[in-house]
């Protein structure tokens, strides 16, 4: 709230939700709100990485959706969206209202100032408890992949290690 939102809706639950249920809950929460011109989501969450919540919400609202933005310009009721692809950027031009998902590198994040944090305390947060449905993608357990905690071969300490490093570079065929 301290970095620029005017108000917030907080869907309160202690449980972990799958992507489909998350999208349904978000959709229910915003369907009857004012008409927003632009809805901004992250492209994927750092933890679950499902790559689908925003797209499901867009379908629910009947809005066009562009994903993975690294650039956006709004003009004349349209959004020009830039997506990074191999060797360049793909450009989309969509009418508003629209839903977009963004990636890191889109802009330089704004950090909250102390006065902004104080003002944020007075902004309304609408907390709504929500009940999780049975997950369709049911998490059973989390496991650490094999191969972590490798034992590195120590080539040396400080600049004296250089000859051993070069030997490795030659052995790997990169030098």
């Amino acid at each position, binding site marked *: 709230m301290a970095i620029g939102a005017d108000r917030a809706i907080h869907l309160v639950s202690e449980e972990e939700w799958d992507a489909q249920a998350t999208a349904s809950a978000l959709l229910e929460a915003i369907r009857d709100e004012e008409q927003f011109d632009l809805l901004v989501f992250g492209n994927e969450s750092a933890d679950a990485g499902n*790559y*689908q919540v925003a797209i499901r919400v867009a379908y629910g609202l009947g809005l*066009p959706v562009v994903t993975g933005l690294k650039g956006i310009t709004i003009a004349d009721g349209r959004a020009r969206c830039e997506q990074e692809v*191999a060797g360049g950027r793909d450009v989309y031009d969509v*009418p508003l209202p629209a839903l977009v998902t963004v990636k890191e*590198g889109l802009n330089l994040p704004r950090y909250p100032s102390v006065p902004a944090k104080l003002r944020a305390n007075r902004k309304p947060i609408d907390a709504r408890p929500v009940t999780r449905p049975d997950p369709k993608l049911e*998490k059973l357990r989390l496991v650490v992949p094999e191969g972590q905690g490798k034992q590195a071969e120590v080539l040396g300490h400080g600049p004296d290690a250089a000859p051993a*490093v070069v030997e490795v*570079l030659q052995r790997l065929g990169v*030098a």
Partner: protein
Amino acid sequence: MSVLVFVEPDDDLSLQAITLARSLDGGEVHGVCVESTQAPVDVLHMAEIEGSYAPAAWAAAIVQLTGRLAPSAVVAPGSDRGNEVLAHVAARLDLPMAANVTDVRDGELTRQRWGGTLLEEARLHAGLKLLTAAPFAFAACVDSTQARVETFVPDLTPADTAVRVVETVGTATGGISLADAKVVVSGGRGVGSSEGFAILEELAALLEGAVGCSRVVTSAGWRPHTDQVGQTGTKVSPDLYIACGISGATQHIAGCKGAKKLLAINADPEATIFGHADYAVIGDLHEVVPAITAELRKAQGA
């Protein structure tokens, strides 16, 4: 029964998705593509959709084909497009979807979390399974099967084609791209400044490699975000990754774990990065890196 795979031209990740599809107990493997290609599947369905990439239209074509073939699973590559198109399919069919799957067995699947540094074992409750194959979790299918090609024209609405690529802008890249480089010399907080990267540039140039960095570096403004290696940056898969002054945060490891070998140079012998490294040099990168460069020049006789 059959399994349907979304295939893109000249795309190794699509061939990996075919390997996943073939591992499923689903009978014939059918491919679906929009841009003309060939693929080691039994039947390749080519959707005739005019114009550039339009995710909703491509998904509409797959949904229509799914209605006709009634496959047990639809598999897509774990690329940006693969995940996007399959998420559209999932939204249209209101079915669950598992992204970045690394294994499927006995009604359970394993998928990547935290950029692959943690795995989730899960169960997908759906008759039709929607899966994307995690990049490099499966070998590319090298089967020499020549698919029988069938074309079809999907029914599309104006809404399906409303979002499409209208232009592709090339970016001027100087030198070797991070994603394709055989050697990546990467710097973290330990480099200390923007100017500090000069010694990394020098070593990278000598090895015909690219320079990368960790998130701390881009946040500090020492390097552009395009140089960032990590979960939210570029994911690299070089023959050798040289991590200089990088502590080894999970998000960074997610971007460089595709490297065949990792050499870590760090002054702190307790740094997390050493737990992910094949080779270690304990020392100040400001002394070690120039020493390697000098030794390399000597070896190359320059």
